[in-house]
């Protein structure tokens, strides 16, 4: 029931907004804020009440009437350790995104409707236990992205950016869709269903043929990969984010983008162990492109938003590395990075949106000394950048360390230890561009554009405080996340390694769990 509310309240509110007259600006804003706040509170409750000891799906809800029985499509929602944190993160970011939308001054009605549809679509995509609705909700969230960038976007290139992001993401989504359809057709004709649980149960008993795995896995890997800006299919991301209105960039870079990673972990890994074995080596190599190449590109940026966009692409590399490691610690770490980076990207884009609103430029050569003018925003910026470098105390550190530990101890490491060492070097690049950005924007003499800027008032501080708070809470008490993720990740990793196929409820390998626990409690 709670999940049902989380997913459908935004849609209901969007429909409600349609009936609000155009000039009631305050009401529209209030509706959007109240809805997303309510959803965020529900998500916190859900997270709190989630039972970390069980690896199965909880809060499962089936919505009658939606779907088609003949094709085996049912709208089923549920959470396990992997997506409960992602839903919490998505709800928090959605609330923060409607908080920062005060900057929208024209056609507010359409904007808030689209924002709510996008939030509902995102949460629905992560909550769906049915492959069809999983895809459906994601696409539902993509259309508002396109319109929001086109209509409320900024900069000369927004037209180009709009079409680039739309075509790129649609291509990725369609490739993934073909993969999903092919997966569905692997089931025998009388047992065809899109229900993820049923599919997993079926292939657990009767593994898919090797050929089919080698064919479907790359479809999913590259299809989802394009959605997550896997190098070399990442070029839509920096330009798209720098042209998007703040709220859209926050929601997309923070949450919607994680859909592809979630799909890889949820669908591709457990169903196709043989496919995973041969293709994940390639993924591990490509993730170096993300970490190193995009990191180096980020170093050369003069525009703050382009820097953030490239750094967000670079961070995705760590998640790919965690997935490619196929170890419990690595996959758990990947999920933690997904959540941490979602909060961080939202925070960074919210801050840069605030600066753009004040200075009307994000050119770092024309800014400087902001720390004197904007002590609060400046401090938040420093913290965000430090979190991006992976400073202990922030959730990003926990995730990235786990990814590296997991990757180092995995089978992958024996073959490609060099990859991991090189990826480790990527952290230094991250530190370089983050700290240089801090120096250029916040310190030194006050830049020409920065004379008239004012600090955020208490209301405007809310989203920044919220996102920073979440980052620090999860960074200081990583057990909150890791304890919930581990049991579910263990099931997936176990299946992905092809072990214990016939056991109905595979027991997680104890040694790995113990290591993850010590890592979690060390902080």
């Amino acid at each position, binding site marked *: 029931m709670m999940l049902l509310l989380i997913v459908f309240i935004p*849609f209901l509110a969007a429909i409600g907004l349609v009936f609000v007259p155009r000039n009631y600006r305050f009401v529209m804003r209030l509706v959007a804020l109240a809805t997303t706040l309510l959803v965020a509170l529900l998500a916190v409750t859900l997270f709190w009440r989630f039972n970390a000891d069980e690896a199965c799906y909880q809060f499962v809800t089936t919505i009658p009437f939606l779907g088609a029985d003949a094709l085996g499509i049912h709208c089923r929602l549920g959470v396990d350790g992997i997506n409960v944190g992602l839903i919490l993160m998505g709800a928090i970011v959605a609330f923060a995104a409607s908080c920062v939308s005060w900057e929208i001054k024209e056609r507010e009605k359409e904007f808030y409707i689209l924002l709510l549809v996008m939030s509902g679509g995102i949460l629905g995509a992560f909550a769906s236990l049915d492959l069809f609705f999983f895809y459906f909700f994601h696409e539902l969230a993509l259309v508002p992205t396109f319109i929001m960038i*086109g*209509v409320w976007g900024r900069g000369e290139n927004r037209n180009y950016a709009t*079409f680039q992001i739309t075509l790129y993401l649609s*291509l990725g989504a369609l490739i993934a869709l*073909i993969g999903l*359809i*092919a997966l569905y057709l692997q089931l025998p004709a009388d047992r065809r269903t899109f229900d993820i649980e049923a599919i997993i149960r079926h292939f657990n008993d009767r593994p898919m043929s090797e050929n089919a795995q080698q064919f479907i896995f790359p479809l999913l890997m590259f299809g989802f990969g394009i959605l997550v800006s896997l190098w070399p299919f990442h070029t839509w991301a920096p330009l798209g984010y720098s042209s998007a209105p703040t709220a859209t960039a926050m929601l997309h870079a923070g949450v919607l983008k994680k859909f592809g990673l979630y799909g890889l972990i949820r669908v591709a890994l457990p169903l196709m162990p043989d496919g995973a074995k041969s293709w994940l080596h390639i993924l591990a190599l490509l993730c170096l492109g993300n970490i190193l190449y995009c990191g180096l590109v980020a170093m050369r940026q003069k525009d703050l938003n382009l820097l953030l966009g490239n750094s967000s692409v670079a961070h995705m590399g760590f998640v790919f590395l965690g997935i490619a490691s196929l170890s419990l610690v690595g996959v758990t770490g990947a999920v933690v990075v997904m959540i941490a980076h979602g909060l961080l990207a939202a925070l960074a884009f919210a801050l840069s949106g605030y600066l753009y609103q004040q200075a009307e430029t994000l050119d770092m050569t024309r800014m400087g000394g902001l720390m004197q003018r904007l002590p609060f925003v400046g401090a938040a910026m420093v913290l965000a950048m430090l979190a991006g470098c992976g400073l202990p105390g922030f959730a990003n550190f926990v995730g990235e360390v786990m990814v590296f530990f997991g990757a180092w101890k995995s089978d992958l490491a024996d073959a490609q230890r060099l990859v991991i060492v090189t990826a480790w070097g990527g952290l230094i690049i991250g530190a370089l561009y983050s700290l240089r950005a801090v120096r250029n924007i916040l310190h030194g003499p006050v830049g020409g554009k920065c004379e008239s800027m004012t600090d955020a008032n208490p209301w405007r501080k809310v989203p920044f405080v919220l996102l920073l708070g979440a980052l620090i809470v999860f960074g200081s008490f990583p057990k909150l996340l890791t304890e919930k993720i581990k049991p579910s990740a263990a099931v997936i990793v176990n299946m992905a390694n092809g072990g214990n196929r016939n056991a109905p409820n595979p027991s997680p390998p104890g040694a790995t769990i113990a290591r993850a626990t010590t890592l979690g409690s060390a902080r």
Partner: protein
Amino acid sequence: MNYSQTILEMAVVGLGLGLLLLDLWTPVEQKRQLGYAAAAALGFVLLFSFSSFVDSGGTTAAFNGMYLQDRLALFFKRFFLVTTIIVLVMSVEFADRISVGISEFYALLLFALAGMMFAASANDFSLLFVAVELITVTFYVLTSFQRTRLASLEAGVKYLILGALSSAFLVFGIALVFGTTGTMNFRELAAVTAGFASNKVFLLGVLLVLVALGFKIAAFPLQIWAPDVYQGSPAPTTAFLAVGSKAAGFVLLLRVLFSAVPEITAQWMKLLMVISAVTILYGNLCAIPQRNLKRLLGYSSISNAGYMLLGIAALSHAGQSAVLYYLAGYLFAVLAAFTVICLVMRHTEDEDISALAGLNQRSPFLAAAMALAMVSLAGVPPLAGFFGKFLLLEAAVEQGASNHAYYWLVAIAIVSVVISLYYYFGVVRAIYWPKDAADLTLRLRHRYPLSRIVPECRPEYHHAGRGLVEGPTEFADRIDTMTIPDLSRRLASF
């Protein structure tokens, strides 16, 4: 002989004749309203088609098996009836651009409808030919109905020449088939086809029939006429051509391929796949540079024919039902788009996409209808176009296991869907991006309010309840249209 089977067709023909008679006693200024009367009467025919008298649930034949009333035929008959009702309402709106003879225009629409309904039931090459000719000949007149407009006349001539050519192919093909097998009935043909599978003359005959049907659905390489005719014809005719005529082509194709010559179809699987792939690519690539909206929709209709051919090329039950679903979604999307064109582009001769600029401010309801139509054609959830493409691709991937060529077809279809997003979203951009634009619809407001409500109010979503979320949004937008912009305009005119 069972004449009562054809009661739906007879009702439509009678209605057309009655309309022509009624025209004699109707004052000139009210002739336009006859369209509503015809649409209402068709509504009754549509309701009647659900009665147990027509829909007995099984398959019945008439005229020695020439005429077949089954589920497929009824599906298409209802489809054609809905299409014609919407097109009639659209024509009432369009009537002031047709200088004379609006009641003949309505009557011709009805005769074409009768042809399409016969086509849906055709189970014999002779009935097929009669139905196709009834459709094509009425369209010769319908395309050139704006006699004073050069483009319309040009469209009529082009359609006439190529249509006559394809009719010639059709007759020749039927003659060859009849000459070799000695029968024209599909059921009897199916029994003997296997024996003629290597007979060159028979194969040539079937090929020529397919060429003629390919002309109707505008499949490559017989798509040449489509863009010019779509652009030049009056908007209601174009809409009818894009939906009704194309669907009639598809029902005949389904009948010929799967009930008359199934063996040949299986043999020609590769040919169907190649035609499908080339049609999809041609339509989508040529649509990219188009600025004329009707022409763009012409190319889009070519590509859509390609997608539906993909379902046929899958040679499976899933593929055929996907085609039917796709057509249903296509009907509402295309008719909504043409209704908006009909209403918005009345003062611009060239129907350029830029005429839609700022439609969002002028009339949010029409803007939303157009945008939804484009997004549905582009195949984005939660609209019907997405489910149609989803089912088609699923059918093709399913066949891929037995023949890997299907994977290439699917890859081409996917790339083309991405290409098509570019031009469909280009229309959406033209509607929403610009912040202000000249008001072209000022004069049409509230003249025929019904037509603003009826056609677009029910896009996809009463089809199996799948394309959800649209209804309420549009309704609300309509309320907005009525109140705030009007009020502000009245205030400004003081």
